[in-house]
């Protein structure tokens, strides 16, 4: 049962609400435990991957810095939904390279391929 593939879906923009940070903390905890986990940035979650954040202006920790820790934690896959990126008129050049772009068809496959989903 420990082989279950966990999908963590992040649909929350950073800084406005702490859920974005809490979703990443969950991902890091899963990575630290050696769980098989995929991270998928969807909808507003893609803002976590856009731009040079300067959150000290609003008294926050840098979200991008937390993201950069992901590879250290053996997260299997980090994915971002192309449709969500296109809808917001963001070029892939502006996106953090930490995540792999996938199309809408692949998003549905990712849903199907995992055993359990943590939704944020």
């Amino acid at each position, binding site marked *: 049962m420990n082989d279950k593939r966990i999908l963590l879906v992040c649909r929350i*923009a950073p*800084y406005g609400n702490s859920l974005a940070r809490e979703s990443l903390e969950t991902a890091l905890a899963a990575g630290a435990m050696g769980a098989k986990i995929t991270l998928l940035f969807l909808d507003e979650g893609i803002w976590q991957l856009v731009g040079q954040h300067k959150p000290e202006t609003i008294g926050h920790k840098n979200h991008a810095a937390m993201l950069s820790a992901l590879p250290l934690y053996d997260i299997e896959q980090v994915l971002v939904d192309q449709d969500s990126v296109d*809808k917001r008129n963001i070029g892939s050049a502006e996106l953090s390279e930490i995540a792999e772009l996938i199309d809408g068809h692949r998003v549905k496959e990712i849903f199907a391929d995992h055993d359990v989903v943590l939704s944020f």
Partner: protein
Amino acid sequence: MILHTVNKSPYSSQCLSDCLNRVSAGDKVILIEDGVYGATIATDALPSLHSFIQRLLASQVGFYTLRPDAEARGLEAISEQSAFKLLSDHEFVDLVVEANKVLNWY
């Protein structure tokens, strides 16, 4: 003049368009918090909101984003190129003083 604040992203919430539907000529709108994602509205993303804002600009509605919130999210460059003028916290206070009243959309 009424100052309207909007704190939600137009990509997840109707908040901005609910606000714009009730704005009068001469009013001002400031995007704060997650509202600053609204500054990315261009011709291709959310075209109907974009043209709505163009029409409102023509009737002297002022558009602003709160700089610290835009900077936190890495959006100050996008905001600078948009119709939304970046304001500091102090300038936000000035705008509230200048307005007759404030209406907060959240």
